């Protein structure tokens, strides 16, 4: 957040919101230190528990509101997995659901003022993206054996073009996890940083109405982006999974 220091003048620190801090004391951050990352991931976990475990504890035929939300998300992701990967992809539904819920809840919780956004951290999204990449690649070779390489060999293309296309396909295949993870982190980080920049301008009396209007507008956009990025990440995971299950073009 931009801070107006005692000396006066605008100071922008739009990236300070992403600093990792220990929850207790000021000590160095080890890999096991409970930090604000831990806190907000934990809150996301609790929110997911509240919606999906607490909300569905009635097992009602006529659902309560919370149970309805859980069922809607369940149905949405289940249908997506089934439509994109086919019937045999349904057994990976819990993993995809886990990814979607984590990203969705982390994205929306990050929109609370003073909150922390784990999904804006490239380390977090890289683990998600490369995790999906590695799992899908290993799964592809385990299920299909060397036939998985057929993914890169276009049988429909003219024979001359096939090696060239294969090279392009291989490159695009290895770029997937990078774009997959940077897309999510970049979107979330950019939105949050822009809100902070507008907030910094709000300290100037003259432009504050415009700045606050800007915050409101960007916030509305971020509400959309938070949902859409969770959706995009999930559906791309499904598409990659489909390649592993059915590598033939």
């Amino acid at each position, binding site marked *: 957040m931009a801070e107006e220091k005692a000396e006066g003048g605008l100071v922008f*620190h739009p990236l300070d919101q992403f600093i*990792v801090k220990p929850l207790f004391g000021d000590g160095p*951050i080890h890999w096991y230190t409970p930090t*604000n990352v831990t806190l907000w*991931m934990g809150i996301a976990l609790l929110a997911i528990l509240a919606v999906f475990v607490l909300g569905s504890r009635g097992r009602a035929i006529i659902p309560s509101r919370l149970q309805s939300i859980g069922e809607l998300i*369940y149905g949405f992701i289940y249908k997506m997995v089934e439509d994109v990967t086919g019937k045999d992809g349904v057994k990976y539904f819990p*993993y995809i*659901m*886990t990814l979607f819920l984590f990203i969705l809840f982390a994205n929306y919780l990050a929109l609370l003022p003073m909150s922390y956004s784990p999904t804006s*951290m490239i380390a977090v999204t890289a683990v998600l993206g490369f995790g999906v990449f590695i799992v899908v690649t290993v799964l592809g070779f385990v299920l299909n054996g060397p036939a998985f390489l057929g993914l890169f060999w276009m049988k429909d293309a003219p024979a001359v073009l096939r090696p060239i296309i294969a090279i392009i396909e291989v490159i695009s295949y290895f770029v997937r996890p990078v774009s997959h993870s940077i897309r999510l982190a970049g979107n979330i980080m950019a939105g949050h940083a822009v809100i902070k920049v507008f907030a910094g301008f709000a300290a100037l009396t003259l432009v504050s109405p415009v700045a606050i209007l800007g915050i409101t507008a960007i916030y509305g956009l971020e509400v959309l982006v938070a949902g859409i990025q969770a959706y995009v990440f999930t559906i791309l995971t499904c598409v990659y999974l489909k390649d592993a299950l059915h590598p033939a073009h």
Partner: protein
Amino acid sequence: MATETTDAVAGACVDAGGSALGMPQLCADWMSNQIFWLVITLIAIYFVMSRIALPRIGAVLAERSGTITNDIAAAEELKNKAAEAEAAYDQALLDARAEAQKIVAEAKAEIQAELDVELQKADAEIAAKTAESEAAIAEIREGAKKSVNAVAKDTAKALVAAMGGSADAKAITAAITARMKG
């Protein structure tokens, strides 16, 4: 979370004032921490979802679709039953109407038969009475004739006696009979 500038964090990624040096996203010192907690969170979410929430919601959804299917089948059955009942009602109405017509016709025939019998009886009675009356009248007439004969004889005898003649009963009777035939 970066409002408190005094809350400085030790490390190579933060300056003395507590602000970020470069992008916090690229600070290698913090990455292992984020990755560790991310993995913990993902495992926790996965276990909760796959062990508790997803089977439960799946069961509820299956149960609901089963209930809906059953309810639709039951509604279909009830509808069929209603149609059957309506057909039965219509049939009963038709039967009742036919029955009523039959009863009316029977009653009419019965009444007609009774009426005929009664009429015949009455006719016979009337005929008998008439015959009886005729007989009585004939008897009375016969009786009157005889009386007239007797009276005439008696009167004639008396007249004859009064005129001083001796009455020959036979002659008188013959005379009177001849007269009466007359």
